[in-house]
């Protein structure tokens, strides 16, 4: 088990090196070079020369890469072109917003497990076909369109929930962690907390629906698969109640593919967050990166994409380890 984790950690090294190299090369492959990309229309020869000196762009490429790795390793991702603030400072503010949204969406998507289980238990009946169709529809709806639909029905038409942002603009409170749910609880004023929850509901449902559809589908398939295994038949034959068979044998074994698929969804969640945040004007990493493209803010793009990718790689590692812990086959070998 320990050997497996160590091996998996070692595999991380080439990935991280490759990733940093890719992000490093990417900014240097921009048309006109990085200096011109940074300056945009203000690119005079003198200004370009100054930027190249300031950023060390006239040094040999290997030296530049080594410099880049060194500064990145110390947690310095450069300075935003538009705000003149450190990219890491902006990240600290933006990242919790995205994580709060992603976790809420993930929790919502877990409803797919009981849904898929229920469908499998009613295999072949109308409810099963209906759930299959809904999950197929789920993977066919673009996330931003679903977000627009939800906004239209629940915010614009019914007026139950707010349309944009993380909290009502008139409410002002301290947010030391930038996780608004925690910060608002800390104020002790329940109405602020409730306002934050209301702002979170629609974006979380929009972001979580597609993973929910996929998880429901995989759960259904996994339960159907496991149900016909000999050990389930034995469990039934020795007189366990249906509920015990389900909880001890069927669900536990069906969990393996479900864990894998949940891990795979994190990439989708991070990608989907960009679109969901845009629809709901959610001040997270997604809107930050989209603004950065529009203003050609390359330090933000470079730092943001690198950071999100590292998080993604780490989440995948966590999923692999969880998988190994749950799966006795891997634990033994």
């Amino acid at each position, binding site marked *: 088990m320990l050997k497996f984790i160590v091996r998996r950690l070692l595999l991380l090294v080439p990935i991280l090196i490759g990733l940093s190299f890719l992000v490093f090369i990417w900014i240097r492959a*921009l048309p006109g070079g990085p200096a011109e990309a940074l300056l945009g229309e203000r690119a005079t020869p003198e200004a370009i020369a100054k930027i190249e000196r300031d950023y060390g762009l006239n040094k040999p490429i290997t030296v530049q890469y080594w410099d880049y790795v060194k500064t990145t390793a110390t947690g310095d991702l450069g300075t935003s072109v538009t705000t003149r603030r450190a990219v890491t400072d902006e990240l600290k503010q933006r990242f919790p917003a995205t994580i709060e949204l992603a976790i809420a969406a993930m929790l919502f998507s877990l409803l797919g497990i009981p849904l898929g289980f229920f469908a499998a238990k009613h295999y072949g009946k109308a409810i099963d076909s209906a759930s299959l169709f809904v999950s*197929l529809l789920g993977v066919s*709806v673009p996330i*931003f369109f679903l977000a627009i639909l939800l906004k239209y029905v629940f915010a*614009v038409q019914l007026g139950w929930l707010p349309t944009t942002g993380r909290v009502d603009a008139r409410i002002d409170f301290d947010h030391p962690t930038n996780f608004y749910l925690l910060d608002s609880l800390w104020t002790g004023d329940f109405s602020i907390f409730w306002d934050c929850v209301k702002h979170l509901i629609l974006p979380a449902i929009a972001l979580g629906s597609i993973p929910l559809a996929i998880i429901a589908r995989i759960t259904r398939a996994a339960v159907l698969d496991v149900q016909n295994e000999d050990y389930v038949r034995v469990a039934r034959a020795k007189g366990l109640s249906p509920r015990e068979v389900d909880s001890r044998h069927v669900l536990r074994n069906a969990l393996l593919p479900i864990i894998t698929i949940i891990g795979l969804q994190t990439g989708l969640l991070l990608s989907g967050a960009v679109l969901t945040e845009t629809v709901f004007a959610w001040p997270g990493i997604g809107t930050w990166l989209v603004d950065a493209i529009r203003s050609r803010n390359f330090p933000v793009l470079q730092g943001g994409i690198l950071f999100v990718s590292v998080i993604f790689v780490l989440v995948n590692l966590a999923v692999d380890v969880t998988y190994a812990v749950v799966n006795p086959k891997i634990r033994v070998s």
Partner: protein
Amino acid sequence: MSVAELEAREVGLEGPSSGLWSEAWRRLRHNPSAIVGFVMVGTFVFVALFAPLIATHDPLEQDLSLLNGGCCPGPSAEHWFGVDALGRDLFSRVVYGARYSLLIGVVSVAVGLSIGLLIGAIAGYAGGWVDSLLMRLMDIMLSIPGLLLAIGIVAALGPGLVQIMIAVGVTQIPIFARLLRGSILATKETDYILAARSVGIRGRVILSSHVIPNSISPVIVQGTLALATAIIDVAGLGFLGLGPQDPSTPEWGTMLTDTTRYLQTAPFLALIPGAAIVISVLGFNLIGDGLREALDPRFRGRA
């Protein structure tokens, strides 16, 4: 499955074999949801091909006088899907949008498929350090969430139609490369490859006439599903404003960009192009699922 069932199936398989492809086709034709998928995709392709004949107006023509009563007039006899915020006929724009979505979807999947298959075939057949190197490279590409990779590419190349095709295509390379490699590795170990090798057939011939044909069916399934993903991703990039430089281009995702402002007064501006995306994507997904079942050898010999 009981022993008796297994035997029964084996007897069945010994009968006159109709071949994988004709049997898959037969099974596909008997799958109702795949038929629905074919109808949806067929409509989509038909509309894309004959857009100039179907559209009732010029998709770019602005008639601001239509907006005198406020934004935006809904469906009418003259404008079937209503009029957008610049006085353009929404029906004609959605019809022309099918062209863009189909073109971008097909081109980007072609980019991802061809490069991915090349890498996968080399890695799978060469093995050794070549395989390790190529697969680590694919791992690195997969370590960037798909849309972010596409955004990075578009940021580097600048917004535009060709750029988003390349961006979406590149994000699909590692998927196809991994798929074909895995499939080739599994096929390489089979007895019939061993048999071909032992009678002295050359490696290249084995690869082209035995390994690849037997490894290709998961690629076909994935290719169909990739078309669905490509249409969604392209629409997403368009929605973020990274699509065609000329914002009047009737690309479905781009058309949705500003509609959130008019949700109160003209929700159909968002609902209709969105529904068009869903229908075309759903069609490809239905066909892809049908193909998966039809090509899966475990289902062979059944209805």
